């Protein structure tokens, strides 16, 4: 096993524990925004997509990268925006400006 793989596995295992610790504190009230928000974070594949699309290694590789960039950007932008839209609706007191119903 290479050193980089061992390093990757270590990060994976530690991140699992952090994930369990952090996520289990999220109340059911916010589980939908949690899903859409964490979903946006998983769009981090965008980082890999950007390199694939911009490296200039062959036409096919570049175009696969381009589609990956589009997919991941939808994931990231759509995820964060829709989460924000939902979280904006959570008020302690009923707001007078009957929140936006776009």
């Amino acid at each position: 096993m290479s050193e980089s793989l061992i390093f990757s596995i270590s990060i994976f295992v530690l991140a699992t524990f952090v994930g369990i610790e952090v996520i289990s504190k999220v109340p059911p009230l916010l589980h939908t925004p949690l899903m859409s928000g964490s979903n946006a974070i998983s769009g981090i594949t965008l980082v890999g997509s950007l390199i694939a699309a911009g490296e200039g290694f062959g036409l096919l590789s570049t175009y696969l990268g381009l589609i990956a960039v589009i997919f991941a950007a939808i994931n990231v932008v759509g995820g964060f925006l829709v989460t924000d839209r939902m979280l904006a609706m959570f008020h302690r007191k009923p707001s007078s400006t009957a929140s936006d119903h776009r």
Partner: protein
Amino acid sequence: MNSTLTAFAYLFASVLFIVGLKMLSSPRTARRGNVIGALGMLIAIVVTLTDKKIIDFTLIIAGLLVGSAIGLVLARKVQMTGMPQMVGVLNGFGGGASTLVAYAEYMRLGELHTTTSLDVLITIPLSLLIGTVTFVGSMVAAAKLQGIMTGAPILYPFQKQTNAAMLAAIVILTVFFVMNPAQWYLLIFIIVLSTVLGVTSVIPIGGADMPVVISLMNSYSGLAGATTGFILSNSVLIISGTLVGTSGIILTQIMCKAMNRSLGNVLFAGVGTDYSGPAARAEQRTVVRYTPDDAAMMIDNAQSIIIVPGYGLAVAQAQHVLQEMVSTLTALGKTVRYAIHPVAGRMPGHMNVLLAEANAPYDILMEMDQINDDFQNTDIAMVIGANDVVNPAARTKKESPLYGMPILNVDHARTVMVFKRSLNPGFAGEDNELFYGKSTMMVFGDAKTSLTGLVQILKK
């Protein structure tokens, strides 16, 4: 930018993701937490763009613009009832991106003529499998939820066996690929098989179980990102992918527990019916019918009320008029709260979002464990558009498919008021004893019409 600085910037982005998720633990900090997560993403993207490896920016910018525009439109246009499909579609795109990156990386390695290490050779097929199953499975789940496809389970003989065979074939193809990585077509076979597997593993799952599937796909999309991180040895991908992976798994467990089902049972048993609902039972039993006027009189005399909303409420688009009634009653000095079962909506936490959209303050949205002991001291439990989650058969009837599922104790309230279109059973197809109880008032009709009538009377 040099690689040390890049590594630290990625680390900083990972920290922001964790902090952002942590702030989701309270509705007061949640919105800021989401912004912090987005900031982490922005940092990760900007740092990546300064990478020396990138020589051409035209396609990147074009891709970012197109993707962002689509994401923006989706996020603005989607209705709150359509949120499960939205999350499904977004999951799918994340998975799809992982597949594409994995294949592009394989091509790059080939063109570089490097002797690729064994780890990368194993993680590429793995990433293709998870990414493709996530992409296809999520799209199928979204199509089911949107009603483009039937919500009923699609079953055929030897379904489990063929799925297992396909998975085994993928493993064998992976072994052959590792032995000779020049055989690119093996990867194509893996993608094709994973596509089929994505379809065949989701179609046998019934519409009512979609919350579990969406949560599970959420988890897969995270794992897909993490495996891509393994291929690229990129820590920010591994960390954030893993966080999402655990989040999805935790939510999947919560959903399964709330339905008293094992994950295996949800995925393979083919339980559930179409959204149109099964036909009413043949046996004729009498229930006492009441009008909104009768209900208004009871409510007028009550001091404490707990409302149990189900997805039928959202189908009837009655959440706004319901909240109007709650505000009216609260203004009259009555204690009114909502009791929300974990599977009340179509995805984890869905009902809370629907009620928040209708302007319900979040401090009266109570989860099942918080409020279940309060029903016995409550004058009226109002059940609107919910059925299985209040069915006492879950407590007593051993042969019932609902048996063992945690339910809301509405039958402990002094009076139970049920707003329902008909006596049709719920998703589980189980008749509900609650409707025939002595302290139960049935108000039949469309929830929106009934509640609108009720509000008018109460406001007088």
